[in-house]
């Protein structure tokens, strides 16, 4: 029996590898994507285009403005002389932030009246807007603190000391790049798997396969092994690039990561084979793969946290294998996630794998006609 399956596996490999274009598509785009997205997908904000509108010639105002000019986060791109110019730089996105220091700023400050600074920020990109406001407020807070100590006034009785575990500089890249391991493995595995049965159905060879002595289980193994190998190799390459090229710290155990990757790929293959068995043509299979990939990525926590979603949608994410693998891969990379916590994520994926693979085996025979 294993000989037969071996032959089937060899045939499947040949089917994918014989086509030069398919081979190219499995190897090159994922690496290009990893590099481009590793650099592009960031929530970090720097080089904020800033316009200064300073109506006050006083020393204190100039001192405050100089802090914005000196900060590596802000690039001063314009100086304004009129209120109307604010819209002229914000509307066409010339500046994302306008710092408006009023006429009476220096006088108010010396007279112990609250000196007001207006921070106007472009809200079209809401996340960037929040981060910009955070940075700008920090500059003003530092200014306040130095002003108080310089003038011998009391400091606030308590101060906030914020630190971050696992990622002390809060680099988005450390969050995104391990996520790409999950993302690209999902995309490559699903597409390769979704096409296997559909291609044969289109050519009519799948019916031939069904009338051979192969049992559904054997066909299942034959169809599942090649994408499993492709997924594991692809995943390994991405893990290597994440560590060697992007220098994302790897703090956990490699064996645990591979246990996670293995079960994750099996679960994805199960879904891919189910899509493939339902599809009548390759085109339907690709569309079906897409209809799975897109929600799977969105509802996984890859870009935005699951905790921010409405409760019903959070429940839906429980059926998504990528959700669990993301926790494993990020946890093992950054937090050195211990084995018991890995198992918590592993068994739901294993359950999805068993259900989807047996569903696919059943569909091999029952989709006919």
């Amino acid at each position, binding site marked *: 029996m294993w000989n037969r399956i071996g032959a089937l596996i060899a045939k499947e490999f040949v089917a994918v590898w014989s086509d030069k274009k*398919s081979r190219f598509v499995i190897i090159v785009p994922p690496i290009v994507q990893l590099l481009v997205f590793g650099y592009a997908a960031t929530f970090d904000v720097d080089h904020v285009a800033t316009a200064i509108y300073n109506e006050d010639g006083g020393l204190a105002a100039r001192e405050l403005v100089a802090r914005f000019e000196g900060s590596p986060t802000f690039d001063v791109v314009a100086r304004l002389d009129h209120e109307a110019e604010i819209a002229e730089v914000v509307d066409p996105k010339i500046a994302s932030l306008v710092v408006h220091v009023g006429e009476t700023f220096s006088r108010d400050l010396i007279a112990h009246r609250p000196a*007001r600074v207006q921070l106007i920020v472009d809200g079209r990109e809401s996340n960037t807007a929040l981060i910009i406001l955070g940075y700008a407020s920090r500059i003003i807070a530092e200014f306040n603190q130095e002003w108080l100590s310089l003038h011998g006034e009391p400091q606030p009785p308590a101060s906030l000391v914020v630190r971050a575990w696992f990622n002390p500089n809060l680099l988005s890249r450390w969050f995104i790049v391990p996520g790409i391991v999950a993302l690209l493995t999902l995309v490559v595995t699903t597409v390769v798997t979704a096409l296997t049965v559909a291609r044969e159905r289109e050519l009519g060879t799948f019916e031939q396969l069904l009338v051979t002595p192969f049992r559904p289980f054997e066909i299942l193994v034959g169809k599942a092994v090649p994408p499993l190998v492709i997924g594991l190799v692809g995943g390994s390459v991405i893990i290597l690039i994440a560590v060697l090229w992007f220098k994302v710290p790897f703090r956990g155990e490699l064996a645990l990561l591979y246990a996670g990757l293995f079960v994750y790929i099996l679960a994805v293959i199960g879904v891919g084979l189910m899509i493939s068995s339902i599809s009548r043509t390759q085109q339907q299979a690709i569309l079906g793969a897409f209809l799975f990939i897109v929600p799977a990525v969105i509802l996984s926590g890859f870009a935005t946290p699951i905790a921010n979603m409405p409760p019903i949608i959070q429940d839906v994410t429980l059926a998504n294998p990528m959700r669990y693998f993301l926790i494993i891969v990020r946890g093992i990379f950054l937090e050195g996630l211990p084995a018991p916590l890995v198992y918590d994520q592993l068994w739901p994926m294993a359950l999805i794998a068993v259900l989807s693979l047996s569903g696919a085996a059943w569909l091999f025979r029952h989709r006919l006609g």
Partner: protein
Amino acid sequence: MTAPPSARSREGGAAPAPKPIPGGRRMRLIGLVRKESLQILRDPSSISIAFVLPVILLLLFGFGISLDAKHVPVALVIENPTSETASFAGSLIGSRYLAPVIFSHRRQAEEAMEEHRVDAMVVLRADFARRLWSPAGAPIQVIVNGTDANTGRIIGGYMDGVWQGWLEQRALEQGRTLDPPVVAEQRVWFNAEVRSRNFLVPGLIAIIMTLIGTLLTALVVAREWERGTMEALMVTPVRIGEILLGKLIPYFVLGMGGMAISTAMAVWVFDVPFRGSFAVLLVVSALFMITALGMGLLISTVVRSQFVAGQVAIVVAFLPAFILSGFIFDIASMPPVVRAITHVIPARYFVSSLQTLFLAGTVWPIVLSDGAALALMATIFLGLTRRKSRKSLE
């Protein structure tokens, strides 16, 4: 798309076409459009990708993607309860963004952090109350889980707010007002409540249109190449320009239908304000649709296999539209090389125009430059497709 006469006669030589009869051009085109439309109507998957997909995707993304962290679980460690720590805990509990869980030992909070039960911990040390009265003040230690850097930063911001609020309240209780020397007044233009949905939903429309335009066209035309029906079409008197146009028109109509549904949902389901002009939106969307369709046609013409066309469409159209378009990740913060790459991503221009038209209004400098870039790209893609298709028959 009218071809110059010289190109026409050259094509006439390539395909054994009879002399065109007057008015035949329009008839042929109508016939082709009819054929393509029927093909779309017969294939349920095309219809679903154009009408059902936008609805599902918008619901999915609109509700699924949110950068607004609310009720973040936070561990509060109070090593030595006093009235001071109780008042701080009160401020923390009062925050609508944070959901504190109180521990008395640091170790318990650390365990909760490791097991992802909380995303941050706040530590008030045993000597907190005493040090409040010392000249240096008492430190409030905040540790966030930095794995999700963005959420970590947001939690840091929330804690800042809690701390400020507590200081002010304390000052009030002591009969003082706490006025920092400089007060920052924050104004968020176009999106006063800083709702991430207002920012994400317009960009999402660009992604859905990319899917309909590029992926669907790439697959459909690649299928024709695979089956040889494209070659069959080419030996008929129909000209290559007409074949392409015949493919473009039905999918254009389909895409614009999807666009209308998406816009209506953005405004009525997600309450995103629309402050620009609908006419401008229509023009920019049409330009983008033609670009996306042109890209799909070009992909399928070059690779001529559904499998590869699907993969290429995902890699060069869908994923860049997601990551390199400014839909969710800020382009200005990308490294210069990546920023340069974003200039050749059509979705970038559409996302920028959509965000502006929805939230800011019709800002001509943005709309005009985006529109010009899209028109240029559409011309390039369609021109290349035309050349590639012609060459193949020689």
